[in-house]
Structure formats: structure tokens, C-alpha cells
């Protein structure tokens, strides 16, 4: 019968020469593994008489525990040593994972919806293929209005609707105004309508399809200061806190009064100068954002809303335009070209 004390002593001697975790693993299994020393001792013990078995069993258990402690201690020591000595080239790249991209438009749509959601506006969606009534008549644009000409609007080949007129690709998100009024029935209305719009115009600065976002607010006692306040809120959230907004008189059929909205230039911050030279982006410190106004009473009437009791404001801005103003990505034709070199950057 072997002396367990001696086994432990020998092990303590030998373990001094162990240098790596791998060596330690095989060394420890030569004691604790299936064919290791401990199992050997146990096999031996089985042959002993009952009274010797008990005492010897206790010794084996004690040895096993000591060995386990020894290996654990050695392992901890080796861990620290490896940690201190291993060289890692930290400049090597890590495992490569694929990087996809969202379209710029999708990002802007989410950002814009979320900005308006915080002040109680709900996002809705209305048809892109529309009838003239919703795109024009209901917006106070009579048959003779220039926007209804063939070269301003894309019409669909189809028999006209007896009541709503010809089918077309909506040239603006304003087509959703009367549809939202009909859906809600009675104010309050707080709508953001984001959609594809279409106009037959295709050159360096126009694409025949583009995105607009339309805000519509109708309620009791809505006035010009509410429109100003909302625009101020939006441009500060979207373009940055230092952005200022101004309204200038303009003309649209479906709003009265109508305004053009300018914001302080995102590049020169409204100073009209960059590095003492004239700002290359804006002419005067201001950039044109888009059109807005107080909802024309005729539009409310088409929307079955009493224009004496209720009033509202509306705006329609181009998403490509706000992206361009915010990030300077003005190569608009790339938006819809599917060019991977454009897409993968975002």
C-alpha cells in the first residue's frame, strides 16, 4: 500500500516543473483522471478487508482534496503568469461581421415621426395613387390651376371616377389632409403624413419620385403663433438647438395666409459667412425649408369641418430637402439609383 503522504510530496515536487495550462491539465489527469493515481488507489482499496478499507478510504479522500487544491492553486498561478506574458496585437481587426445599412430616407422618417410624436402628432398613411378630388379640388385648386396641367402632375390611364375625377400619382402629401379630416370626423387633428410623391420632373435637382412629410393641426382657436411655435420646435429638434426659423409671405391655394419657411443656414449658422468668405451654401444666412400656412376655410369645408368653429395649420416639406440641409447630401439622384456605394455609407 502506497503512502498517500509521499504521493502528495512527489506531486508537489513535480508540479514545480509545469509551465503551461495544457501540461497542468494532463498532469492533473494523471492523478485525478479515469486512469489516474486516485482511481488506481481506489481499485486497490476494494481488495482490502472491511476495517482497513474505512481508514484507507479516508486517506484517499484527503489526498484527493489536497491534490485538487494543489492543481487549483497552480492553475491560478499559471493564469496570472499567462496573463502577464502573452502578446496580443491590439491593432489587428476583430472578427468581421457584416454591416448593413438603412436608407437615408428611412432614418429621416423615423426621426421626424418621433419628433412630432412627442407633441401629440400621430403618423398616418394615405394612398399614393389618388383621385384629383383629394389632390386638387378639396385643396382649393380648381380645374384651371397650373399644377393640374399634364406637365406638373403624373396621371394614370384609367376611366375617371364620376365624383372624384381622374386618377393620378399624388404630387404632394397634402392629399391626405381631407382624408384625415374625413377619418377623424371632428377635431382635434394632429397628423403627420409621410409618403412618396410624384411629379414629372427629372433633372440634376429633381427626381420624379420624392418624399414629403405633411403636418396638419386642426382644433378650436388654432392661430399663426401655434404654427410658428411648432416649426420652431421641429427645427430645433431636427437641425439643432441653435437653429432659428422665420416665415415669409407666400402663396398656396390650400392655405391662407401662406408662408415660406426659412431656417438659419446649417453651415454658417446664419452669419452668411464661413472663414470670412461668403457662405457657399446659403445666400443670406437663411435656407428655404418649404411651404406652410393656415388651412384655407374651403379645405376645412371639403373636410366636413366647420371653418367658423375650427381653424388649423398645415405644412408640407421635402424629406430629401431636410436631409440635404442637415447633412449636406445633395446628390439627390443617388437616392433612388440603388448604387451600393451610396447606400452602404449609411
Amino acid at each position: 500500500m502506497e503512502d498517500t503522504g509521499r504521493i502528495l510530496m512527489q506531486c508537489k515536487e513535480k508540479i514545480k516543473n509545469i509551465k503551461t495550462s495544457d501540461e497542468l491539465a494532463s498532469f492533473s489527469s494523471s492523478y485525478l483522471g479515469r486512469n489516474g493515481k486516485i482511481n488506481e488507489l481506489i481499485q486497490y482499496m476494494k481488495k482490502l478487508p472491511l476495517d482497513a478499507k474505512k481508514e484507507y478510504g479516508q486517506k484517499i479522500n484527503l489526498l484527493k482534496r489536497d491534490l485538487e487544491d494543489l492543481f487549483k492553486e497552480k492553475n491560478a498561478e499559471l493564469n496570472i503568469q499567462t496573463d502577464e506574458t502573452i502578446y496580443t496585437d491590439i491593432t489587428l481587426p476583430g472578427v468581421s461581421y457584416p454591416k448593413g445599412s438603412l436608407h437615408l430616407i428611412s432614418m429621416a422618417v423615423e426621426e421626424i415621426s418621433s419628433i412630432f410624436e412627442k407633441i401629440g402628432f400621430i403618423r398616418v398613411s394615405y394612398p399614393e395613387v389618388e383621385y384629383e378630388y383629394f389632390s386638387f379640388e378639396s385643396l382649393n385648386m380648381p380645374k384651371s390651376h397650373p399644377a393640374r396641367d399634364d406637365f406638373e402632375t403624373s396621371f394614370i390611364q384609367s376611366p375617371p371616377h364620376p365624383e372624384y375625377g381622374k386618377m393620378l400619382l399624388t404630387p404632394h402629401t397634402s392629399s391626405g389632409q381631407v382624408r384625415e379630416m374625413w377619418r377623424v370626423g371632428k377635431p382635434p387633428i394632429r397628423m403627420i403624413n409621410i409618403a412618396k410623391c410624384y411629379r414629372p420632373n427629372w433633372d440634376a435637382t429633381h427626381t420624379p419620385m420624392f418624399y414629403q412629410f405633411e403636418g396638419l393641426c386642426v382644433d378650436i382657436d388654432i392661430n399663426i403663433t401655434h404654427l410658428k411655435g411648432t416649426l420652431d420646435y421641429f427645427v430645433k429638434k431636427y437641425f439643432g438647438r441653435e437653429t432659428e426659423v422665420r416665415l415669409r409671405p407666400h402663396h398656396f391655394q390650400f392655405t391662407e395666409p401662406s408662408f415660406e419657411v426659412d431656417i438659419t443656414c446649417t453651415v454658417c449658422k446664419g452669419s452668411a459667412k464661413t472663414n470670412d468668405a461668403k457662405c457657399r451654401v446659403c445666400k443670406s444666412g437663411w435656407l428655404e425649408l418649404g411651404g406652410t400656412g393656415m388651412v384655407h376655410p374651403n379645405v376645412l369645408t371639403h373636410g366636413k369641418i366647420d371653418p367658423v368653429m375650427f381653424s388649423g395649420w398645415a405644412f408640407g416639406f421635402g424629406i430629401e430637402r431636410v436631409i440635404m440641409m442637415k447633412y449636406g447630401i445633395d446628390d439627390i439622384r443617388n437616392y433612388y439609383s440603388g448604387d451600393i456605394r451610396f447606400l452602404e455609407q449609411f
Partner: protein
Amino acid sequence: MNIKITHNWLKEYLETDATPYDIQKYVSLCGPSIESVTKTSNNDFVYDIEITTNRIDTVSVIGIAREAATILSRNGFNAVFKHKPSPKAVFSAGHMLPLDVSDEKQLCRRILAIVMDNIEIKPSPSYIQERLNAIGIRSLNNVVDVTNYVMMEIGHPCHVFDYDRIKTHSLIIRRALPNEAIITLDEKQYHLSVEDIVIDDGSSKVIDLPGIMGTANSVVTPDTKRIIFFIESNDPVAIRRSSMRYGIRTLAATINEKSPDPETAKEAFLRGIELFKEIANARTASTMIDLYPDPVSQTTIKTSVGFLHKKIGIAIPEDQIKQILEGLNFDITISKNGLMTAKVPLFRRNDVTIAEDLVEEIARIYGYHNLPNNLAPIPYIEIPHEMEQLFEYQNIIKLFLKHLGLHEVLNYSMTSLQILQKCDLIPVNHLYLSNVMSEDIKYLRTSLLPSLIQNIKSNEGRKKNLALFELAKVYIPQKDNLPQEIYKLAIIVNSSYPEMKGTLEALFHELHIANYSYKRSTHDLYNKSTATDIFLEQSHAGSVGKLKAKYRNRFDIKSDCYMAEVDFQILIDSARKIAPYKSPHPYAIIKLDLTLELTPMLSYETIRNTSYKLSPHLHNIDIVDQYKNRITLRFYFSSEKKNLTEKEAKDELSIISKTLISV
């Protein structure tokens, strides 16, 4: 539209201490936008001004001066509008030449005409030449220059004929005959339509396309001795249609299509006569013809100060309201109880028709920049459930695909006949545009896949591995109704079929779709061995497969394409935010492997379905290895109530194995 005027010219009608840049700043904030101010070589300034269609009364020096006077004086400048009294037409005694003008159908609202003789054609005085040149109008000779100068100064287009070239001395307004030919003064020929309005000299000869452009056979020449000075107030819609039809976009046409005031026409007429006398030595040689059967009358708007305050949002004092409107030539009376009557100046009668228009006049002159910013009260408005779901999942799904490494692409909603035909899609099943600007974008898409195939083609050589997706509407025609607009999600990759399917399945797992399955499909775009219909919760949601070689050849694509298109609504209807929760149990899991040969009779789906049906303790199957059609599967057995023994698991597997092999 934009016009240009010069500062010195403006000062003839505007007395002010404001600089050109002050004028730009304040007029832009409260009136027409002055987009730029440019200094000229002879110490003048040129304003480039945007005129909106409703403010055609500002399309002139006089119009801008009138606006500027009111705006500047409210912003701390001295500014007075110098209104010159209209000159009186004086007729030279005993010198009457015949002229006959008729408009039996009343195609014009007003016609003004007069013969002038003793014309001396020569260059204009330098101040006229300089001003016209500065605003981009070429100075030709004194007679032609007068028409342009008056148009820019007063704001109404006008025209001169050579009296002696119109032998009949007669001007008859009529509609053009079908296909009637004319040659305009720039020597271009046009064939007219019956919607166009022309002037006939009584011998069936067209001598003018009124309001748009003169014709070569009647305009003044260097030899002209006698002229007819002519102004007509046209039907703006007819002018626009004709002008756009022939692409003749003269400044005159651009102004006339916006319905300038017939009273302004008279003012321009008198100013013109004055200038002809002054700079061409002309004498009037006929009576002044003024056909004006239905003169415009002044309109009145009734409102209240309370209404104005409510719409503007602040209480601008009554006296200021009155002052602002009077400065804009309105006649205002306000009663003790705040009721207001506003008489609209004639030159604003088309633009200012309702009380809201007065709101605009007051607020803009008061200054939008002087109004406070307020947010409206925030009520709770319920978003329609379907829309909420749609937008929420659009975002979740787009982001997920992005994070898987796919790139989102947005294509035009319309495609070409050529692309439809390349994909064997039937044109009559698509809506199409009746007025196309490009054949590339004529047909509304009924599938997103053709565009994605094009995307792969156009990106060849730019990047080796492409994985794209598009989430967009397709347009399915319906009888007597707008098309159905259905969102589709389409994915295309050029790597492999398993990668394509893996992408889809990753998405299904992300959306916790419990029940998805596949069936062989006959979808036309996919080849026979891969064409697969996708079912989500038993609904046919779309398809996936490898692009048939036939189509790959037609698009001339180098790599294979694998693609899928699913109905977005069905996809999100099957989606769940989280899967039903199962409590983890403490009992042992026994894993056993089995290798099988996949055959048309024994598909992976058959193996799965059969195994789950036969074995009560099977809870998962993994694919461990695959070589050709030999597949090694790992079966996971466990019980939620006790530890299974290895024997129990092996017995279950053996039942599975025997059944599958006998299939």
C-alpha cells in the same frame, strides 16, 4: 416667377432713406421675396424678386414701391410712395386715322388701342437702355423699348403693331382655326389649335398671338412710321394653355396668365402714350379705343377685429390694423363694437376675397417675426391600430435586416415596359401613366423583384457580395377603384440559396413566428429546383428561390441571384413581440444523432413533422452536418417531469428511425 427691377427706377416711385439692403431685408420679410441685390457698374442696384402668382400687382416697379413704402415705414424708415397722377391722353387735332377693333365673342376682358403717327425710330435715351439692360431685357429701339419699359414699370404687358403693315386697319379677336399656321416675331412657325386666341386683320390673316407673342407680319420694323399701341386684358387660363402648348414662355405670357388687373392695363396704356410722345416724337392719331364691357367693381369684406385677433394669435390694436390696411390702399371702417368693413383696392381684388386674406395682410405687415411662438395644446389622439402596427414593424424589420448585413434600397414605384417584358410580366395587369416623361417610369410595380434584379445588375463590379432589401408598396389595379396599395418586403442576395433562406428564417425567428413552412412553387421567376412558396400560419405569404437562368441571361447578370418577396401585412400579422414563455426544467436532456438520406419522398420537413408526431419527448432537432443529401441530425429528448433514461430516448429515436426509413 422672378422679375428684376433697379433701385434708381424704384426710387422714382419711392422716397426713402432705406438702403437697397434694408429694402431687401424688410420687403422680403413682409412682402415679395427679394432674393438678391446686385450692384451694377453705373452705381445702380438690381433686385431679383420672386413674385407669387397671387401678387401679380407687385410684378412692377410701381407694385414693389407701393409695398416697400408701407413695409419700410413700419420698420423705422422714412418711406413714401410717390404716386404720379395718370397722364391725360391728348389727341392731336384734325388728324384721325381709321382703326377698327372688334371682339364679338368677348374673348378679352378689356382692349385698349390707339394709333400714333410721326414715329421716329431711334435708340432709347440712355437711362431706359441702361435700366432695361440691367434687368436682362435687350434694348432694341425706342418703340419696342417703350412696351418693355412700361410692362416693367407699371406691371401690364403691352404691344405695338406697325399700322401700315395692317392694310385693313382692323383688328378682330377670334379663336384660331384648327392647325392654322403662324410665324412669330422670332421667325418660328406654329400650328395652332382652336383653343388659341388670335388677332385677325379682317382678311383671315393672323397678325398676332395676343398676350403671348407678336407675329412677324405685323410687328414694327426700322422703317415704321405709324404704330398701333395695343393692350388687351386676356383670359389667363387660355394664355397659360397656349403659352405652355407651344413652349412660348415670354415674360408677357407669364404675367398675363396670372390675371393682371384691367385697371392697371389702362394705367400702362396712358404711361405708354406718354413715353411714345416723349422719346419717339409720336402724336396720337386716332381716338382711344377702350372695349371694356364688364368693368371690375370694388369688393368689400366684412369681418371683425375679434376674428382677426383670434386668427393671428395676438391682439394687434385697432388703430394699427387700420393703419396697416390703409397703407395697402384698403378703405377701412371699424364700428364701435369692432365690426370691420374693408374695401379692397381693385388691383388686389383677385387675391383678397375673404377675411382670412385680411389676416394675412395685417400679420405680414405687422411682421411674422414679431409674433410669439406657441405650441397648441396636446390632446390625446388615437392612432389607427393597423397604421401603428405597420410603422412599428417597418422600423423593427428594416433595422433587423440592416443588422444582418443587408442594405436597404429604395427604387422608383414605376418601371418600364422593357423590364416587365424581360420578366414575362403582363403589361395589362399594371396601371400606367398617361403622360410619361420617361419610358423608364411608366408602369406601376406589381412586384419589387424586377427592380432588385436591376439593382444587382447595376452594381456589378462595384461590390462582390450583394444583399439588398426593399420595403415598398405595389399597386394592384382594381375595377372602378383606386388600386390596392400593398406593402411587400423583397430581398435579393447573390451568394447562395441557404443564405437567402437563412435571412428569411432569421427574420421569422426575430419576429417569433412559430409556424412557417414551405411548399414547392411554380413561381415564374424561380428555377424548378428552388421555387418555394412560403406559408406563415397557413397563409401564403410569398415565395423564395433562385432566379431562373433564362432571366439571368436576359438581364445579363454574372452571378446567380436568390430572392424572396413576402406580403408585409401577412408577415406582421404572424409576428409576436415575444414567444409564449416556457419555464426551464431541471431534468436531463439526452442528445442522439441520426444520419439520413434526403429524397423527394423524405424531405427535411417530413422528417421533422414525422419525428415530432411520433416522439412525445422530442423537443428540438438540430442539423449537425450535411454532405450532399446525407444529413446528420441531432435529436434532443427530455421530459418536464423526470430524468429520462438513455434507453427511453433511444427507444423513441428507434421508432422515428424505423418509420422514416420505411417512407
